[in-house]
């Protein structure tokens, strides 16, 4: 980080730069201009080269898609696989079995576990406890960091068992799985999952006791919604402002646009042009009653009032979801019987389909058109972080005026903390953060 040679807030123009935002997935920058105490401009500079996955997919066989889209992210590859297989199954009229559906949910639980544990303990906890890194924090809080590492590892173990490997799993296909695990293999994980459930309940208590800045914008929260389940794989998309649509209507409601300072697209409401918020906080706010029992109890007794509009309390939402993911994983493992067929037969036909699933960071929408040979003619992928960028910029506009009396490094750090609430995966959207603050 570099700061201007000028001093504190009284000066008309000041500049703060954070060359790279730390503890996020990927790299990028932030620019803000403040004139006489008024925030004139905020830009998240997403400077990584665009990755062109949608173009790569054109002309590819549909069955290659989950393997290619998994490469979009090393932290949330399952999300990309899940949204792609559901969208392609919709395009070709494929119906999966309840057993495959349950196995997909279990795989998704593994990803939520490893991603949430990573973010809570290694990426965001240092913000609240006043450390620059998880390494610095580990020296004073080894027990908590060890707990986080073990929580994460169990998620990775689950992914490896179901997916063939923890990073970019290879077992997922359109129609199901190339291979389903044996029941005995899954049962071996149960003691770890049971430990993880207790540890994640302790995590909720830990993070709910943190001190949260007083900040609560008027958000529109958006998530997937299912009548009976906490949202993961299906199906409708709802919002706190009354949206309740099938995924096929998503592009009518949410509009992606290019902005000059970003290689990632920004999403906004098509009608109002307003930003919206996706992720664990949105999910809990919109689906609290559908959490598994212990997760729901933890949410309701941890001292946070839901729905919460404080983005800093996203760490509590993430911890509650960690409980849910462990709890649901145990239930799914208990009920699991190895299916006779791990995937259903696909009858290739031309068609178009879309789906939205819940990546650890929020709604992930995919749409594909395939021809009668099963080759992809069109692909659209709208990642959660890209949907949140405009909301992050809005947050910064609202947050900056209240912290301008601080020193430049403190302002920079506070802005980083605010952005980390979103657990941004810049690589997915395309990558992240420099803060440059001009003040006049």
């Amino acid at each position: 980080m570099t700061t201007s040679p000028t001093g504190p807030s009284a000066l008309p123009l000041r500049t703060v730069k954070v060359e790279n935002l730390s503890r996020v997935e990927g790299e990028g920058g932030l620019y803000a201009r403040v004139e006489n105490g008024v925030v004139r401009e905020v830009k998240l500079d997403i400077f990584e080269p665009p990755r062109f996955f949608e173009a790569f997919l054109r002309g590819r066989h549909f069955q290659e898609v989950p393997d290619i889209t998994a490469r979009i992210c090393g932290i949330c590859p399952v999300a990309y696989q899940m949204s792609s297989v559901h969208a392609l199954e919709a395009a070709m009229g494929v119906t999966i079995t309840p057993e495959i559906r349950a196995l997909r949910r279990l795989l998704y639980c593994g990803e939520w576990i490893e991603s949430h544990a990573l973010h809570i303990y290694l990426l965001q906890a240092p913000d609240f406890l006043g450390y620059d890194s998880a390494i610095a924090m580990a020296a004073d809080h080894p027990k908590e960091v060890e707990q986080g590492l073990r929580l994460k590892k169990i998620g990775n173990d689950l992914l490896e068992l179901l997916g063939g490997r923890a990073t970019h799993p290879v077992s997922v296909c359109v129609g199901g799985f190339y291979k389903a695990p044996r029941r005995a293999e899954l049962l071996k994980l149960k003691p770890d999952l049971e430990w993880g459930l207790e540890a994640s309940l302790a995590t909720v208590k830990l993070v709910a006791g943190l001190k949260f800045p007083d900040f609560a914008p008027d958000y529109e929260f958006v998530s997937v919604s299912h009548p009976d389940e906490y949202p993961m794989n299906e199906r409708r998309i709802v919002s706190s402002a009354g949206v309740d649509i099938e995924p096929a209507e998503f592009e009518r409601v949410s509009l992606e646009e290019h902005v000059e300072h970003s290689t990632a697209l920004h999403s906004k409401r098509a009608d109002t042009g307003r930003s919206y918020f996706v992720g664990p906080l949105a999910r809990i706010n919109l689906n609290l009653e559908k959490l598994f029992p212990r997760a729901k109890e933890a949410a309701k007794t941890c001292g946070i009032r839901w729905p919460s509009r404080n983005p800093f309390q996203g760490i509590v939402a993430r911890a509650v979801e960690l409980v849910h993911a462990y709890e649901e994983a145990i239930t799914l493992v208990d009920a699991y019987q190895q299916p006779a067929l791990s995937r259903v037969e696909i009858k290739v036909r031309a068609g178009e389909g879309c789906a939205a699933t819940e990546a650890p960071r929020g709604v992930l929408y995919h749409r594909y058109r395939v021809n009668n040979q099963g080759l992809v003619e069109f692909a659209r992928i709208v990642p959660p972080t890209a949907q949140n960028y405009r909301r992050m910029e809005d947050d910064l506009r609202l947050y900056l005026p209240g912290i301008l009396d601080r020193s430049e490094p403190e302002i920079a750090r506070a802005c980083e903390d605010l952005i980390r609430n979103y657990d941004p995966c810049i690589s997915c959207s395309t990558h992240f953060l420099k803060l440059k603050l001009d003040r006049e």
Partner: protein
Amino acid sequence: MNRPASQSKVERGAAKAAASLRVVGLGNPVAGDDSVGLEIVNRLRARGDCEGELVSLPQAGVGLMDALENVEAVLFIDAVSSGSPAGTLHLVPLPSGEVAPRALATLSSHGWGLAETLKLMEALGRAIPRLALLGVELGTVEPGAARSPAVEAAMETLVERFPAVYAFLAAAEKTGWAGPLRFPPGDTSLAGL
């Protein structure tokens, strides 16, 4: 489509001294010479007579710590950039001043590597096994590029002479290690091992 499905799994080589040494290949399989550590482990695995465990970690991140658990010694094989000619081999005991951690406060999760892993293990008070790095000086890390001819040649030498590397490490455990060894491109004798 190329599917290195076995890459994240620990595979045991010949039973000899299996728990004492773990050979861990690091790198990016689709970034030119950065794939060299992974490819060497693939070839050692195909050789079938290597000592210890063979592990490939194409995207290790925080999970790198798992590779350092329950083992006496770990040899990392990775592409390195030190300014030497491409194909130069470096055998370096770790920790070493030559492998410095990046500025920790500016790390994204993508910046997490071996140096950060060792720092975290140290902070947690975890036992760190004896460590060494077998580095292959890279030429290009262009995405999708083929490996440089000099790196290919170094790789062939290493795979062929790997028993000598293992013997050197085993001896160094008893007699100590004076410091980093370097072998220029084209040196197939690896004299000194």
